[in-house]
């Protein structure tokens, strides 16, 4: 946890998301407590951890679907958390988020183009013709040009993920959240998705938060990370994944990053 805090002073202004003393709970059962980390501008930040360690719960907190039990989550340019904001301010902030859900979460009754167009229509930032051009552009960006009139049930799993990504990009967000982007994809498709994520970060200059436990992805795309542990209910490491692998002395961190069976928990 130390490397992040050393750099943090200098990078204060470039922090996109700052999580302080966050405790997440469902009712009385605490999932993760006293979590501290920050996500810097233009970096790909990985939230990693074993199944049931609270990765997805943390993501739900970051995108405002769930209220923190304690602690705060601050975003660049805001002085209060999502739950303390006035509704218009909250809406403005949420518009800056692009979220790719685990299963794609495409609306099944709409075509791909309609899926991408809906956020644009809702916020009425363009006229009908522009919206149709924009949704074609977003689909083209993820390699789905020409699939505008397909329904989600008619495309493959990898394409569903990419279409979900196109929808996440609809409003030109500056923070992306990806929930298990490569889950259920073959190695090649998942590698392509990783490349796409890197391309998007480089070209859009966006900040990307990725929840994943796929080691290949973690090392390919991750600039910075936090490793959650379900047992101790907190983060047990943070920093660049490659550095963590090379430098961390914690056997649990090593076990996770090398898929070894020795967990160090005895």
């Amino acid at each position, binding site marked *: 946890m130390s490397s992040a805090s050393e750099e943090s002073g200098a990078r204060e202004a470039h922090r996109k998301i700052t999580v302080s003393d966050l405790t997440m709970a469902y009712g009385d059962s605490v999932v993760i407590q006293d979590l501290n980390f920050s996500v810097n501008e233009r970096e790909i930040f990985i939230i990693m951890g074993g199944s049931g360690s609270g990765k997805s719960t943390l993501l739900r907190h970051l995108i405002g679907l769930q209220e923190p039990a304690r602690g705060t989550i601050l975003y660049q340019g805001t002085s209060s958390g999502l739950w303390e904001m006035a509704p218009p301010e909250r809406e403005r902030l949420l518009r800056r988020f692009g979220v790719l859900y685990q299963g794609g979460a495409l609306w099944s009754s709409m075509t791909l183009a309609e899926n991408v167009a809906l956020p644009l229509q809702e916020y009425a930032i363009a006229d009908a013709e522009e919206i149709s051009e924009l949704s074609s552009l977003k689909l083209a960006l993820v390699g789905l040009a020409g699939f505008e009139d397909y329904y989600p049930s008619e495309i493959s799993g990898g394409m569903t993920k990419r279409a979900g990504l196109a929808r996440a990009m609809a409003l*030109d967000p500056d923070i992306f959240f990806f929930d298990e982007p490569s889950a259920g994809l073959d190695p090649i498709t998942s590698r392509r998705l990783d490349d796409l994520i890197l391309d998007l970060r*480089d070209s859009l200059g966006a900040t990307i938060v990725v929840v994943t436990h796929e080691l290949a992805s973690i090392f390919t795309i991750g600039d910075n990370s936090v490793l959650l542990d379900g047992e101790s209910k907190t983060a047990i490491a943070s920093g660049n994944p490659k550095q963590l692998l090379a430098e961390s002395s914690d056997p649990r961190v090593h076990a996770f990053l090398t898929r070894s069976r020795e967990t160090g928990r005895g």
Partner: protein
Amino acid sequence: MIGQEVAEDGTSGVQRVNLEYARRPDGTLHVALGGEWKLGGGLPAPQGVLEEIARPPHPQRVMLETSVLAGWDSGLLTFLLAVVSRCTELGVEVDRHGLPEGVKQLLALATAVPARHARRRATPKPFLARVGDAAIGWRNGWRDTLAFIGEAFVSLLGLLTGKARFRRSDLLRALQDCGAQSLGIVALINLLVGIILAFVGAIELRNFGAQIYVAHLVGIGMLRDIAPIMTGIIVTGRTGASFTAELATMEANQEIDALKTLGIPPMDFLVLPRLLALSLMMPLLCLYADLVGITGGLVVSASMLGISPVQYLEETKRAVGLNHLFLGLFMSFVFGVLVALTGCMRGIRSGRSASAVGEATTSAVVTGIVNIVVATAIITVISYVLGI
């Protein structure tokens, strides 16, 4: 040869977006984009530039220049994509060096995979073809229904020979859900229907001084037809729809596939307990509805017509026979079977999307109610012929 478009910000009058294009003597079309090129600010349409590119003789190359660009988002990309794809069509070279790095990358991404031009939603089919499709769909639907009924019957035979596999707890849960938990709504509706029936009857019969026959009207009406039909319709909307939604969601989550791969027939495991529960509970609900309906009639007679409760019950006893009661109970049993089968069939045969679950549920309720009415008509005719 020179075009210029400026979009102004309506509120401040500040020049926001600037587009200039001009041909150079060496055959290069120079396109300069400037200002805050973002959506929602009235961006210039690419038509002017596109026409300039298409105007013969075509420019040798198109140079994109953004040195005075203040900011950009997807609005700039759609513009550039239109220009680039027109140039590609006409074989005109595009010089992208003047574009910001991010824009260059995104353009490359957007044009990396060629568009699939085989769009699926082709021309609509001719009328006869659609009629044919509908007829074939209808025939397949019937075949499917018959197959389902057949499978359910086989499964029922399996139950009699002790081969059917389902969990007792599922049956108990279904019994509780169809029976005890429906009592409230069944009581409410049938009480009101009993009251309405008695009320309408009382007004007419009073003209002839035949108020006492309200007991006949309510008793026979409720027992033979109205209680089973009302209960059937309530159960269709309440329980049949829930069967469909539950099974359709299970289908969507591949839970039914999981049963199949374990060698457990979904018909035994899912349909049978529901079918049993509903066909057992419907007659009981109907009996309860009969009592509540007669109570409704009694309340109206006692309060409006001055007939004492004892008198009313005596008259009811004289009017209705066991044949009326059993006919009604038999009908409700039939309704139970029909509603359970339609509900389960629509659920199991549903598609896998959210809208398919909705469609399946709608269809289950509509088919369920139609089945009830048609079955009533058939049973009424048969009982008339048999003199019941």
